[in-house]
């Protein structure tokens, strides 16, 4: 009886060390593999495509539109992106007579990482916001639907003029699945009008269906 009791007592202790080792190994993996999503002002569900090119991160100019047709522009936070954002703001201020102060231009550069989506008329008052207010502020989007008043065209024109034709290396289009075609068409029209004929659409990865010509091509290539 007493022997039985002893055995029972011994078995209650479980050595957790291996468990800890394992959990911290997984933890380390996740910490290293994680890349936090940059703050986005728009909620966008990208369409899928078979394209497997990784999204570039340097010198990016991005036009995003959500399913309600709100259009936003943003620049990458690196040196090239910031420089282009600044030039855009300066030229836009001059062309449209906005009278932006250097401080407001700096704010434009700052906000341009997260996304700017206000009509040009509202730009000056928008740039008076603080960082905290920016996060709360619901931006109406850049008007594009009306072909006569396609203000994305003005933004793009300022960008192209400001950089003197040195276009951003990566012009990206970030669209939502449910956006109606006319918005996309007008965004395309603004690009074409400013001589940007080559850009990249942001999509989510999808496997190549087997048996299709692309599938065969990839198999042969490998």
């Amino acid at each position, binding site marked *: 009886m007493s022997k039985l009791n002893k055995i029972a007592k011994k078995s209650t202790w479980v050595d957790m060390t291996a468990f800890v080792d394992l959990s911290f190994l997984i933890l380390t993996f996740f910490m290293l593999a994680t*890349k936090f999503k940059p703050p986005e002002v728009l909620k966008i569900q990208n369409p899928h495509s078979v394209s497997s090119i990784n999204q570039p991160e340097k010198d990016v100019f991005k036009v995003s*539109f959500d399913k309600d047709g709100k259009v936003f522009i943003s620049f990458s936070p690196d040196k090239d992106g910031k420089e282009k954002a600044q030039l855009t703001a300066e030229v836009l201020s001059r062309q449209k007579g906005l009278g932006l102060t250097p401080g407001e231009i700096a704010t434009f550069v700052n906000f341009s990482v997260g996304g700017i989506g206000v009509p040009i008329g509202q730009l000056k008052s928008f740039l008076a916001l603080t960082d905290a207010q920016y996060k709360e502020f619901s931006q109406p989007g850049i008007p594009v639907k009306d072909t006569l008043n396609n203000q994305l065209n003005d933004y793009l024109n300022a960008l192209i003029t400001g950089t003197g034709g040195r276009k951003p290396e990566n012009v*990206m289009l970030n669209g939502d699945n*449910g956006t109606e*075609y006319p918005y996309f068409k007008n965004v395309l029209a603004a690009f074409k009008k400013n001589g940007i004929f080559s850009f990249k659409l942001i999509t989510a990865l999808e496997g190549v269906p087997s048996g299709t010509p692309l*599938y065969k091509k990839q198999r042969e290539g490998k």
Partner: protein
Amino acid sequence: MGADVSAPDSGGHKKGPGVKKQARKDTKVDMTPMVDLGFLLITFFIFTTTMSTPKAFKLNVPDDSAKEEEQNQAKASGAFTVLLGKDNHIYYYEGQLAEDGSNFKSSNFKDIRAELLRKKASTPEKDLVIIIKPNDNSVYKNVVDMLDEMQITDIKRYAIVDIFPVEVDLISLTEGTSPPAAPAGGK
């Protein structure tokens, strides 16, 4: 837990000096809270992490200002026009649209690939051109899906073109007559 149990246990039936008792005390540390913490953090990282990074899909659009002769070059026999309607419906016709709309057919994203491949196989490569015409109430996803289809079927020449009013009428006519659940042949 094990330490708690073993301490009075060893003190119960041993009469040695207290120093020795201390030395013999269990060195095991209870790891359970550590495991809890570890898994809590793992859960946090799993939820915040984004494993699927977005990909970039290259798109080149033609310069509209120099398109006239480009458009004329497309032979009617090699043209295949895909019209995008709403609710993922697709309509297509080969060559030119017949006056009475007899070659205007309805399809969906599953079947269109076979049609494209059939067209590709039966047409000389230099003549083949796919014309994509999104309707005003088609969505961005459908346009990208169609461009993607061009990649999948390995078709080099395709263009996004504005839709004609006649075609809009045909689409609305078909959408009005056939139930949206079954996009049967609109012959």
